[in-house]
């Protein structure tokens, strides 16, 4: 008589498939964690590089010698800056001396929603640069706030802020010319610059009022 293999019991079958599934899960989880760990440094580096590229536009790299991305302070959500979540302020220093602060600000009243800005203010309160990082203003009309889209390549609209400070420009001059201020605007699209000017002014004021706390190397608990 030939030996007939016994039909596997249900328990045996279930165990077998469970073990196989388990092995698959282990293998592919291993693959995932391997890929994650292997790519992590590169992903972090490119995220940092992207941030630096943006910061370079508002603050020249020659102005400071510290590792700006590491020298940061967290600020709580603040209505003045239009931020509804905590945000990071980058601090530029040269030879240990305070040079500038780079911070985020939001203009909540753009023509089509919020306009996100990156603002750099140097140690004596003058703006070194402002960039729009995100906006939904009308293409071809309100989007001249981005230097890339601005027709005036020599002196883009957003460059008007460079060098200004609360000391050199009085509060009532932080307006478009149409409203009696000192800033140019494009006819037909004044809501956008109005929102940005207001937000930049508030950011400059925020830095002025909080400068000691923002530059402090051992920041206290955010209040």
């Amino acid at each position, binding site marked *: 008589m030939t030996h007939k293999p016994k039909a596997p019991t249900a328990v045996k079958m279930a165990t*077998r*498939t469970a073990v*196989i*599934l388990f092995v*698959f*899960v282990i293998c*592919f*989880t291993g*693959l*995932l964690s391997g*890929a*994650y760990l*292997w*790519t992590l440094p*590169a*992903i972090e580096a*490119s995220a940092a590089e992207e941030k630096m590229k943006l910061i370079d536009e508002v603050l020249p790299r020659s102005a400071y010698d510290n590792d700006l991305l590491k020298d940061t302070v967290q600020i709580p959500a603040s209505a003045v800056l239009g931020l509804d979540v905590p945000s990071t302020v980058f601090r530029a220093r040269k030879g240990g001396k305070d040079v500038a602060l780079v911070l985020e600000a939001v203009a909540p009243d753009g023509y089509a929603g919020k306009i996100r800005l990156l603002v750099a203010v140097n140690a004596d309160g003058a703006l070194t640069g402002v960039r729009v990082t995100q906006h939904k203003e009308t293409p071809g009309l309100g989007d001249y706030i981005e230097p890339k889209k601005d027709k005036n390549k020599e002196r883009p609209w957003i460059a008007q802020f460079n060098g200004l400070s609360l000391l050199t420009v009085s509060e009532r001059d932080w307006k478009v010319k149409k409203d009696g201020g000192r800033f140019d605007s494009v006819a037909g699209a004044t809501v956008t610059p109005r929102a940005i000017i207001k937000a930049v002014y508030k950011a400059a004021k925020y830095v002025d009022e909080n400068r000691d706390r923002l530059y402090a190397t051992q920041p206290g608990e955010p209040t």
Partner: protein
Amino acid sequence: MITRAELRQIAANGVWKQNTSIVQILGLCPLLAVTTNLVNGVMLSLATIIVMALSGFAVAALRNFIPHEIRIPVFILIVAALVTVVDLLFNANLHELYNVLGIFIPLIVTNCIVLARVEAFANKNPPLQSMFDGVFMGVGMLWTLALLGGLRELIGAGTLFSGIDMVFPGLQPLQLLPADYPGLLLAILPPGAFILLGCMIAWKNWIEARAAARRQLRTDTALAAGN
């Protein structure tokens, strides 16, 4: 290895006969969401091609180790792991491309076409064939999504290639209809996608029906001549 005839059959199936979007009607969720313009449709398809080729190859290579009863969870595991790995690798090594394709890669997880091909083809065929099946299914999706996206964009907004400057900086989208074209919102919204997809399916069926009628006519005349 793979023979030329096999390859031709796989290609014909993927690009036309078993076209994912207009024959199998699979993967409609990303299709509706993404084909509001041509560039998006093409980008999603490119990302899908990569994932389908990889998952087809992986599943076919492992097919003899996968018990029949638990094949679906294992497939899902493999596909999801591969999508995530592709996402990470793109982010790390091809960061410029990732900025463009990145948002589409997670969308592929919602695309049942990947799982469908793995189950219908890769589960029963060798790795190389399965990889090409994935590629050509993706190519079939590429042209249909490009056509659908292009039509929706043209009818809905009067432009073509909007968003191309994200892929190739410096290129401008084409304004095909007059700048004061009011746009047709329906084409941009999901119902517009369904209506246009229906038209495309009808168009494909019409071509097939015409070809079949011609074949029929030829055999009829051949028979008549023979008698």
